């Protein structure tokens, strides 16, 4: 009864016209951003955090949810129309959708992608709502030792999932991030760590400028020096969201939605892994006559990929909200926006921020509906955007990086930090190191550090056997962490 009242109260806030308008702006910006080749979802999220600084708590959340939902879909537009995926997760959609566009079925392909994205978001939201209470219940059983292990698992799995066949590079990236997170005054004794006598470093390194540098400036340095001609859009034709056609793919959609949500809930694995994996599973499970169409223009393949990468949005919110561990780099930006607005994420989210979870559910639902309508409305304007060269668009993002980094704490040191992070990100990229584990580790580092030291103090007079037998959740987590390393070193290493 209490919860129903809370839901109604949050719905009353979320359905205010101003809230819907802000969400609409977020969705629009997200779709346009995602549709532009070279501008990724994470980049959109990282840069637009700066814009949310001046907003109130609910408005900022609504805005960021709109951007997230919109940008994940946006990649499909350029994938279908100009054969260049706006975001990397749209590669499967590009293979199938562009083949259909060349046959004059671009409108139908985009319609399928829109419907697939809409369904994917729904599946992600439903599974998020269904699993949050269970994960929160479990998370409340966690004490210092378990929180430390969970943080370490988050960084380890993120490293594995980001770096493909070289998980060791992902782990190195994560462990460097841990070192960065230790900079500043130590939380227990107030001892300055790794500050080298620089007073400003005693406040620690904020991860928002780092996020903007790694996913904003690094992208600019990667993309702007490439001279590439603007894409030539295919004919769109009439955009038809084919309801009847999609009913035939219900099974595929549900399977892809579950895959996308589960992948989203694993730290480090985002929309790219979700859409690639779902596409691969879909191809293996397709009927023989349908399988022949895969790679040459299959609607079922578009459903597989689009449902999965959008279901990923809901999935990524699951560990972000319940454990404080972002499901992927884009979710790290959501986490940053939430923390900036004094929302304490993690096991105590419901007690410390009553109702905020319901507001996020409702926000995701509103963003999903707006995404559906705006996607249809924005496809034709997007076609015009594709004629703009990247060499025109990318320089315009540079001041946004500077403004975003400065806006968070009105400290110009953060702008220097953003610049250093951008250069470091570019060098790491050139050496084949993924960047998401580093950001995740900077977020989780203080949590891991404080909890490890507390746990060690508790375990001072205990034997190893006591720790293993009396803390079963911790023991399970140790096994999971060890398995993650084993899987990365031995199993995936062999495929390289």
């Amino acid at each position, binding site marked *: 009864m209490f919860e129903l009242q809370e839901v109604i109260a949050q719905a009353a806030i979320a359905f205010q016209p101003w809230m819907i308008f802000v969400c609409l702006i977020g969705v629009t910006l997200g779709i346009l951003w995602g549709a532009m080749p070279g501008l990724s979802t994470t980049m959109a999220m990282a840069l637009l955090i700066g814009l949310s600084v001046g907003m109130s708590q609910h408005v900022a959340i609504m805005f960021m949810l709109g951007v997230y939902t919109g940008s994940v879909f946006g990649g499909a537009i350029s994938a279908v129309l100009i054969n260049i995926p706006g975001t*990397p997760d749209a590669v499967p959609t590009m293979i199938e959708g562009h083949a259909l566009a060349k046959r004059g079925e671009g409108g139908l392909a985009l319609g399928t992608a829109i419907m697939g994205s809409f369904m994917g978001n729904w599946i992600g939201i439903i599974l998020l709502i269904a699993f949050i209470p269970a994960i929160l219940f479990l998370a409340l059983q966690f004490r210092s030792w378990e929180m430390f292990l969970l943080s370490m698992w988050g960084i380890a799995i993120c490293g594995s999932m980001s770096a493909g066949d070289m998980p060791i590079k992902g782990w190195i990236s994560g462990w460097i991030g841990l070192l960065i997170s230790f900079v500043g005054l130590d939380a227990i004794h107030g001892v300055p760590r790794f500050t080298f006598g620089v007073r400003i470093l005693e406040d620690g390194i904020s991860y928002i400028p780092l996020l903007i540098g790694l996913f904003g400036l690094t992208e600019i340095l990667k993309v702007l020096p490439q001279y590439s001609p603007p894409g030539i859009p295919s004919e769109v034709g009439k955009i038809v969201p084919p309801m009847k056609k999609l009913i035939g793919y219900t099974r595929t959609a549900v399977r892809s939605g579950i895959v996308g949500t589960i992948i989203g809930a694993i730290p480090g694995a985002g929309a790219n892994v979700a859409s690639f994996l779902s596409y691969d599973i879909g191809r293996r499970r397709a009927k023989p006559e349908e399988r022949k169409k895969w790679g040459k223009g299959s609607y079922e393949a578009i459903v597989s990929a689009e449902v999965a990468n959008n279901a990923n949005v809901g999935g990524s919110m699951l560990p972000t909200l319940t454990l404080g561990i972002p499901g992927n780099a884009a979710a790290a930006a959501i986490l940053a926006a939430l923390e900036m607005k004094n929302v304490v994420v993690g096991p105590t989210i419901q007690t410390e921020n009553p109702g905020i979870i319901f507001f996020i559910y409702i926000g995701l639902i509103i963003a999903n509906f707006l995404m559906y309508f705006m996607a249809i409305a924005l496809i034709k304007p997007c076609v015009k955007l594709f004629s703009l060269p990247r060499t025109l668009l990318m320089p*315009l993002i540079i001041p946004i990086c500077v403004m975003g980094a400065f806006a968070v704490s009105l400290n110009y040191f953060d702008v220097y930090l953003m610049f250093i992070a951008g250069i470091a990100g570019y060098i790491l990229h050139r*050496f*084949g190191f993924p960047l998401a584990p580093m950001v995740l580790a900077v977020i989780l580092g203080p949590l891991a550090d404080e909890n*490890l030291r507390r746990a060690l103090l508790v375990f001072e007079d205990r034997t190893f056997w006591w720790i293993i037998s009396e803390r079963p959740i911790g023991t399970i987590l140790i096994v999971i962490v060890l398995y993650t390393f084993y899987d990365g070193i031995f199993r995936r290493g062999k495929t390289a």
Partner: protein
Amino acid sequence: MADEKKSGIEADVESLEKGVFTGEEGGDERSSPRKDFIASVTVAALGIFAMILSVRLGNPESIYTAPGVLPFITGACLVVMAIGLFLKTKRRYGLDEMLAGDSLRAAGNYLSDPEARRTLALMGVIFAYVMILGQTDLDWRFKTAFYAFRFSGFELISIPFIFFILRFFWRSTLLNCFLVATGIVVFLAVVFRDGFQILLPGAG
């Protein structure tokens, strides 16, 4: 370089066709045995450096709550991982290939690539932009009956720098570059400052 971007997409398509897992941020196609060798040495040095600094942090109370506990473990892990990266690269490519070529020639090759030169130039320009903006403190206000126009260090520094970057990369006419740079910087300043009440760097 458009080709490289294209080949990145093609690599994704290929991995998709083969059902090979390339990870959320793609595979290691940009790396090379020599780069991995340099990375392993650098990471090992970083790990050792972190371990030394951690030990120097001291031990105010119990060893269990010492501020250097996790930093020391992290440094040690980095050393182990660096060894792992070294061994993995050695097993995959062989020691000769890891050590082949000299660094000066590699640097020369890098600089002979036009895209690399453009990237370095861009880094230099952005560095200058960030540094000069950081030193600027300017806020001019022109109040009218309807609106208080403001011109701060942000606009003063950003417009010429964005103009320069546009001119260098976009290669449109001077007028086009100037109009786009001015338009976008003023638009962003108005949106952030007036729309969202966010202060801008450069005293804005």
